[in-house]
């Protein structure tokens, strides 16, 4: 019971952090009503974008995890307080709006919440043996125990003389390690319960946002679309599908790319197609692309490809050639990461885990 309370508390804390970070981006949407779900979603990626910017240089400089915990912890407190100072009026207005929404659509609200909670309970309580967990969770456990970042092999505990660049820039597990170090929560609980729950909630949130764009005020249709999407997730199972990653490997960055990032890019495609193409939206899209690279290396390849497939046709549909440079700017982080990795594989450079 105590464990459940801690996990629920941590999920709320995470959502408050994402709301605080995201508000710095969505505040520029002055003509529109403040959307908590959009802010939290964008805030998640903005949060991980900033985290990577702080984390990577510290890893290169071989600093201990505890030093990063102090710096990042301090920075997060500062940003949250700053956000509170700047955005409390927006948040208060949004809270009032949510209250009215629940009052007006309480059946829909209850059904949507129930659908999400059932999925969280079923997925996070299931036992699955997956080989990759050894790496992703092992990295968190090893980093916390050794107070070092990516220095020791998570499979054996052996010291590695250089960083494995395939995973180096995906700092998502290191963030989990920081949370575990600060809170004392076990890495298996942080990864397989807390962050997994957040990923499932985000997946439902993004399907809600998309359904809302497609069906507008027809709340029964919005809910049915969410329900059918969930149904497909539970049945579209081979070891390769993104649904399988969502259900059995939720703690991996790849699950976020397949089930949150790609639908989020599709959602932004719909928004821009519908004329919401101000700079603020493009900046949000940019941070989704940057943040996803810090979540999983898979994003390096999939995010530029998704932008090409979803966004480039927009240029012709809307006859707006200015979309091309904006799309290229969003693709750039993934392409740069991909080139950095190719450079490492080809042997152009190595990052050693000791001072030579």
């Amino acid at each position, binding site marked *: 019971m105590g464990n459940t309370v801690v996990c629920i508390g941590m999920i709320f804390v995470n959502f408050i952090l994402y709301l605080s970070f995201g508000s710095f981006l969505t505040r520029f949407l002055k003509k529109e009503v403040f959307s908590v779900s959009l802010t939290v979603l964008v805030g998640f990626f903005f949060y991980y974008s900033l985290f990577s910017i702080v984390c990577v240089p510290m890893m290169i400089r071989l600093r201990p995890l505890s030093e990063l915990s102090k710096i990042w912890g301090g920075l997060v407190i500062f940003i949250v307080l700053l956000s509170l100072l700047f955005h409390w009026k927006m948040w208060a207005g949004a809270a009032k709006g949510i209250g009215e929404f629940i009052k007006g659509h309480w059946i829909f609200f209850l059904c949507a919440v129930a659908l999400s909670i059932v999925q969280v309970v079923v997925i996070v309580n299931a*036992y699955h043996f997956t080989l990759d967990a050894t790496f992703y969770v092992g990295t968190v456990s090893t980093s916390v125990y050794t107070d070092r970042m990516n220095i020791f092999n998570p499979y054996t505990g052996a010291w590695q003389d250089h960083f494995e660049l395939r995973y180096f820039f995906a700092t998502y597990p290191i963030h989990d390690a920081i949370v575990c170090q600060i809170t004392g929560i076990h890495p298996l609980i942080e990864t397989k319960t807390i962050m997994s729950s957040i990923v499932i909630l985000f997946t439902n949130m993004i399907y809600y946002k998309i359904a809302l764009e497609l069906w507008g005020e027809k709340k029964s249709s919005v809910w049915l679309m969410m329900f059918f999407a969930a149904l497909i997730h539970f049945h579209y*199972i081979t070891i390769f599908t993104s649904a399988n990653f969502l259900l059995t490997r939720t703690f991996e960055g790849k699950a976020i790319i397949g089930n949150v990032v790609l639908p989020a890019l599709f959602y932004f495609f719909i928004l821009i197609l519908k004329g919401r193409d101000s700079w603020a939206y493009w900046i949000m899209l940019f941070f989704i692309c940057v943040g996803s690279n810090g979540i999983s290396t898979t994003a390096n390849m999939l995010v530029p490809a998704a932008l090409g497939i979803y966004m*480039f046709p927009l240029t012709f549909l809307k006859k707006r050639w200015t979309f091309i440079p904006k799309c290229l700017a969003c693709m750039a982080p993934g392409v740069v990461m991909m080139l950095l990795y190719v450079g490492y594989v080809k042997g152009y450079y190595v990052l050693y885990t000791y001072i030579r």
Partner: protein
Amino acid sequence: MQNVSVYQLGIRFISACLDYYNGMNAYLVFYVASLLFVGLKGDRKVREIFLPSGIMLLLTVYNPFFPILIDRFFDINKEYYRFFWLTPITILVPYGGVSVLEMEEGKKKMAAAFALTVILIFTGDYIYKNGYTKAENPYKVPNEVIEVSRMLHQVSEVETPKAMMEYDFNMMMRQYDPSILLAVGREDYINGVTYEITEEQMNSKENGFLYRLVAVMMRGEELEKEKFLEALEGTNTEFFVISKGNLIQDYLIDMGLTKAGETKGHILYRYNVKERENPYVDNIYTNF
């Protein structure tokens, strides 16, 4: 996907990949059907949302020549399937389904919703079709893993005992307890379990000791005493953790290992290794 290669299959690569990716699921067919439905019945806005990405996907990801082209620059054999994630199946199929429901009203709509639910269930492959296994504890590892970890620390004289474990425990132990060091990593273990271990491999300078340990643990091979002990000493492995059904117990005792503890399902055997290691403190990194 380990068993498909662009080099071998050429333009057939896509269809082989899709077969593995989809299995017996019909959702890709429903996606195409929904795309046609939207093309024929959808209003302009909806067509603009779904058709361009569908066409782009057909021209790129599902184009048989596309993998041949990008394989020249990147090795995409194992991970090409992730491009299929770009297909918005979980968006368009539900949208198509709800659009069909919207054409009906009242009881007919309810019946159609029920029918659609049944169709989606029976044309897919349910994740828990073989039963739902609830995790035994909040850590989501078997209780035995926790028990073995506790026992290892109880009997070990050092903070970081080094052990050789069976495959599944080897993969789970360090998620729960990173203070336990393991003799064999993931790739060496998988290679040792999947393929025949040759004499040449067991005598190789690079990973020979590791292959010997895997050969004994997972293949039940009874190596000469000198070779086995050399592998234990060479890897500083003090403990062997085996399940009670494993038939190598007598062999381990013959090799001079002694029983150090036992849990409900596992036995810990100990070898008095000459040198113990703690990589967390004894390496070049911590010496500056």
